[in-house]
């Protein structure tokens, strides 16, 4: 009986204000909560909660400093910063949201945007942006803003952006007398360079066994993994299949790709690069900081090799949004507008924390640490990129695809068979995605 009552309370408590509110007035709090804190009452002290993932104490200090800038401009608002590791953050956030104790300011990744946005975890920000012309939203990189939008509305303000690029180990290239990767590498010249540097236990390339690392090659060949409206999977089609075959050959035919000995390690490929035993790998500019610290060799970046595709790399980033059930949405916006304002970005850029989403701060970022030398390529790559399109059930989908693709990398199973297998499971998942989309409109 007690259990019944308790579970009923879950059923109903989550029910209040559950439909994503599309009210455009910024001061309204949803869920029928008290409205004593009306608009214009800016004198009372408000403490906001903000959760963001960090990987080190230094990162934590950076965000805390950023948060303190809010109080400098709005003395009545303080931002309490809470943090966890990246994977823990995503473990906790759904539980927090489900129990109604999510933070006021929610940090969000572009790759998870559909999953959360479609289930009402973020407040649309356009009304707030319109009210604040000083915010200068136009200085933000268009594609990352798009990646953090949903149904045409901006759901989070990005702080970084990253197109996938190619990192390479200059020392290895020098050692074997192979020319560096250049800006117009096609797959053949990539393969030659990989072969040239695969000697003495070193490898030309290392791949992480996830779909994210495969997409640039698929796109680079003019193919795709699903169609524009996300209703059909396209991975089994010739152009995508060729790309996957090319990667499979790197492992099994040409043997230039390092065998993956630690599939459970998300950073296996990065650590392989740090060890100096790998000549090239794909990653985003978000890893500049780590490579600077951990690599004992000269390195630089180049665009991802292209084989005729129009776009050959994807873009992703993260940002901050507002929880729709927060009792202080106005204040939360004020905080965000400070942290993600021009000043906030200048501060972030000096820390070299992440490639800035605001174009005006790129120069400051470069001055903070000039490595890699080819940093201008990031902006160029971003221009020739598009956001990695994901679905509302992307977690499940990508896990399925990754595990199927594993059969190619680890068991050398025939590529077309595996891709056909993927299609059989991908299409039903896309159907479900469409269902979720239509039921949330």
């Amino acid at each position, binding site marked *: 009986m*007690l*259990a*019944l009552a*308790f*579970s009923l309370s*879950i*059923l*109903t408590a*989550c*029910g209040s204000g*559950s439909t994503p509110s599309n009210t455009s007035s910024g001061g309204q709090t949803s869920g029928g909560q008290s409205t004593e804190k009306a608009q214009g009452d800016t004198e009372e002290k408000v403490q906001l909660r903000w959760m963001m993932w960090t990987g080190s104490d230094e990162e934590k200090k950076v965000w805390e400093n950023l948060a303190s800038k809010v109080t400098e401009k709005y003395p009545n608002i303080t931002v309490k910063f809470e943090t966890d590791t990246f994977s823990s953050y*995503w*473990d906790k956030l*759904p*539980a927090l*949201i*489900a129990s109604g104790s999510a933070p006021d300011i929610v940090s969000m990744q572009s790759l998870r945007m559909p*999953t*959360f946005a479609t*289930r*009402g*975890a973020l407040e649309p920000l356009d009304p707030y942006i319109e009210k604040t012309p000083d915010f200068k939203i136009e200085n933000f990189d268009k594609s990352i803003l798009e990646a953090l939008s949903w149904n045409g509305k901006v759901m989070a303000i990005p702080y970084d952006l990253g197109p996938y690029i190619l990192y390479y180990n200059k020392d290895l290239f020098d050692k074997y007398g192979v020319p560096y990767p250049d800006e117009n590498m096609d797959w053949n010249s990539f393969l030659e360079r990989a072969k040239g540097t695969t000697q003495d236990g070193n490898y030309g390339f290392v791949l992480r*066994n996830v779909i994210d690392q495969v997409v640039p090659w698929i796109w680079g060949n003019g193919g795709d993994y699903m169609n524009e409206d996300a209703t059909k999977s396209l991975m089994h089609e010739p152009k995508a299949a060729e790309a996957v075959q090319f990667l499979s050959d790197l492992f099994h035919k040409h043997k230039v790709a390092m*065998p*993956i*000995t*630690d*599939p*459970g*390690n*998300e950073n296996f490929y990065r650590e392989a690069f740090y060890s100096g035993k790998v000549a090239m790998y794909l990653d985003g500019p978000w890893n500049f900081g780590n490579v600077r610290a951990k690599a004992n060799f000269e390195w630089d970046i180049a665009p991802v090799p292209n084989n005729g595709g129009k776009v050959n790399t994807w873009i992703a980033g993260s940002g901050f949004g507002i929880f729709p059930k927060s009792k202080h949405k106005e204040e939360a916006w004020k905080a965000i507008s400070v942290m993600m304002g021009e000043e906030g970005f200048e501060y972030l850029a000096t820390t070299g924390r992440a490639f800035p989403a605001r174009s005006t701060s790129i120069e400051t970022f470069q001055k903070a640490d000039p490595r890699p030398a080819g940093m201008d390529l990031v902006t160029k790559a971003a221009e020739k990129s598009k956001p990695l399109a994901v679905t509302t*059930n992307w*977690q*499940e989908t990508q*896990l399925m695809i*990754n*595990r*199927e693709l*594993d*059969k190619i*990398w*680890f*068991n050398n199973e025939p590529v077309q068979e595996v891709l056909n297998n993927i299609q059989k499971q991908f299409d039903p998942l896309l159907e479900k995605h469409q269902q979720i989309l239509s039921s949330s409109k």
Partner: protein
Amino acid sequence: MGSLPETENREVPQREVKTKFNSGVRKQKFNREALSGYLFLAPNILGFLAFTALPVVVSFILSFYNWEMLIPPMFAGLDNFKNLFFNDPLFLLVIKNTLYYVGVYVPFNIVVAMILALWLCTLTKGVAIYRTLFFLPVLAPTVAAAFIWKFMFEPKVGFVNTFLGWFGVSGPNWLGDPDFAMLAIIIMSVWKMVGYNMVIFIAGIQSIPASLYEAAKIDGANSWDRFIHITLPMISPALFFGVVMTVITSFQVFDQAYIMTGGGPANATNTIVMYIYENGFQYFKMGYASSIAWVLFGVIFAVTMVQMKVQKKWVNYD
């Protein structure tokens, strides 16, 4: 369900009757005993009901709902269970993986623990030191232990393959080979947990009166006979406890798979509880995850009940 076998024949002669309320005198004695029972139980059961039993019951109710965490639950009846058994090939795969794990890990663990326990009990000096050394892995945080073992399973320079190399065996790409990844996890798990059972068995062995062994030796029994006819029966309660708990926990294997291989490669180490975690925390299908958990419960419960019934035959509480 009847009373549990080991608690039959436990009462003092005057209370032979097993049914509840009979005549006045017996009723009085019985009520007082019942009251004592509840009083003894009270401190623990209050906390137990509130903090352990209640969430369990809620998860049971949730298994009949679709709950995507960020939106309210929706009643789904038996849909979750239907989908699980008829629409979910991955479920069957994780059951297979888990059974493989249980089938190899449990005997491996119990046998090694027993050997170590017996061995340590033959030592005259230094029992405490060896016991500490073999128990040390239990004390290590799983996160740290899993990471160290990842180093050790590295095919070229890791300790495991180096060790095998001393015997002329060329070890595989443990964590990267779907055929060997689960075995790697089993090995690591035995290392981590064998100390638990070893300590329990040692406690059991050390409570066997030496007089029994003396008597047996005088009667001419050799070591093997003494083991079968004295040691085993006398530690059967401890052995029973060890086996039951090891089976229950091994069906729920998660931490090691999560940290060492993430369920891969190609789903080779995806276990039932990993699958529950994925569904609940990554796909936000909390209702579905609960239904998987309750199917697992059914399996574990059935296995445990079988063990409890069979214990009559070999477990000796006298």
